[in-house]
């Protein structure tokens, strides 16, 4: 049983009044997998991430992380267990520097962020780790500038850096390249591809070229439910997908 899935969802349901945003969502992500989550606008992709990370509470169903049922656990505690997300719209700390922001996330993970009697610079290992993460995402050069002064693309990378600082088992990337020009999104996904293969990744993305290049499996969502899940080759030739989703683009 080396292939025990890291993240499992079973029959997740969620509706707002009469609007069904998630219906019977069952997933099983093995360790190190690269899953793309695609689907037309309003299909419930971000809602699914909100459900998995605890920002929304499902009406029914279970979420299991590494064998532990986390359905009843709050968002911050899920992060502590390795279930981490990034945001489609930059959700950063405008007046902190990238070094401070990543350092904060590292300190939170190490359980040191509640310490008020020791000065921040005395945490040398945490500082080195934070700097190392910024280096791998090519942000080291800008690490002491206020985040609000960074270029948009760099802010998108900082989103990922904050996610990595939590040492995730599962990383959910909500449109990591959102708002980035098509010419640069490939570069951004090279950074995503460089993430340790120990980490399971589920990412939302609209650009089909990027999806087919970086995903090992693809999940297609339509109207709050999973239409089909399969390898890129299976998805590309799937008649229903072509009709519902690809058809809209290629037609």
């Amino acid at each position, binding site marked *: 049983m080396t292939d025990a899935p890291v993240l499992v969802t079973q029959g997740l349901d969620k509706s707002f009044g009469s609007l069904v945003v998630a219906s019977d969502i069952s997933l099983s992500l093995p360790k190190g997998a690269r899953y793309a989550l695609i689907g037309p606008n309003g299909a419930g992709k971000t809602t699914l991430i909100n459900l998995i*990370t605890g*920002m929304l509470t499902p009406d029914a169903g279970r979420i299991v992380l590494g064998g532990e049922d986390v359905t009843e656990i*709050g*968002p*911050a*505690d899920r*992060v*502590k267990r390795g279930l*981490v*997300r*990034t*945001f489609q719209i930059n*959700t*950063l*700390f*405008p*007046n*902190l520097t990238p*070094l*401070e*922001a990543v*350092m*904060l*996330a590292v*300190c*939170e*993970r190490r359980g*040191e*962020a*509640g*310490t*008020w*009697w*020791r*000065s*921040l*610079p005395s*945490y*040398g290992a945490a*500082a*080195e780790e*934070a*700097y190392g993460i910024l280096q791998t995402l090519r942000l*080291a050069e800008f*690490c*002491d500038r206020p985040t609000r002064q960074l270029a948009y693309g760099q802010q998108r990378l900082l989103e990922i850096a*904050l996610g990595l*600082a*939590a040492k995730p088992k599962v990383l959910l990337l909500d449109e990591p390249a959102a708002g980035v020009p098509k010419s640069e999104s490939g570069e951004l996904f090279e950074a995503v591809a460089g993430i340790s293969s120990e980490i399971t990744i589920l990412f939302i993305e609209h650009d089909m070229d990027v999806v087919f290049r970086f995903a090992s499996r693809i999940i297609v969502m339509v109207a709050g439910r999973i239409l089909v899940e399969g390898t890129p080759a299976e998805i590309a030739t799937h008649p229903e997908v072509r009709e519902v989703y690809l058809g809209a683009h290629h037609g």
Partner: protein
Amino acid sequence: MSEPAPRSVDPQGLLRQQVRWRLLETVFWLAVLIPFFATPTYLVLCSQIAIAALFALSLDLIVGYSGLVSLGHAVFFGFGAYTAGLLSAKLGWNEPITGLLAAGFASMLLGLLTSIIVVRISHFALIMVTLGLCLLMFELANQAHDLTGGDDGLQGISISPVLGYFNFDLYGYTAFGYSLAVLFICFLIIRRVINSPFGLSLRGIRENPRRMPAIGSPMRGRLRTVYVMSATFAGIAGGLLAQTTEFVALDALSFQRSAEVLVMLVLGGAGRLYGGLVGAIIFMVARDQLAGLNPQYWYFWLGLLLVLVIIFLPNGILGGIAHLVSRVRAKK
């Protein structure tokens, strides 16, 4: 020749750079001693400034660093003042330092109690609840006339010499020295808190409360801790006022005091450690000078000052100076 290329950046050094004790700080803390020699007739006022500065500093912890708002912070100031005052007036406990610690401890407990509600709400609700708690305590103190003296004030406080040596004198030498020493010690503690991982997490909450759970931060716990800390220091400031004036007026708990301390902080610049101190100095000196001219008219000038600062220096006087300095540096 072939020595290894130096690391372009030392992350620990960058962090150290931000928290290091600056020359200007030494200058500031030496400068606040000047009144002892230059204006010995104003030491009573100087003592009040030091107390107001500590109160503003305590408020900065929650307003400036954590992004909470409070329009009722005087509840902790007044609670500390009455604690220190009652200890002496009713129980005959006249030793100043333990009395001050008791004042801080009492306000800490009150902070712990009220924090249960406070960390669950935000924005307008928070403003109203903090204001409500303060009004509530004001009226309680007013009604408990037998204990607090109501609106006649609490009399009969008599404080022993500080450290058994420094008598509280008419000119305020001891009062100012004592207040200043307490302010400095509290400042050092608060400075450490701000520059700690905990302090960084507070700034994180202020900058983006939505992100904090996503990096695994227990926000409510953090806010509770800082709220209790802030209450403690406010209580110490109140205790100082009771001890140095040997009197507690009901206005220690008033809405006006809550509003004034917020004004001081905004004037000086919230979230800048020295903002509350500078704001307290400007506010108290201006009030003293302008009220000397015409007591009624002082609020006109205060209002004008406040409007001008908010329009032209939205980050307060220190924020404006910092902005200016960074622009001059950028030009070089």
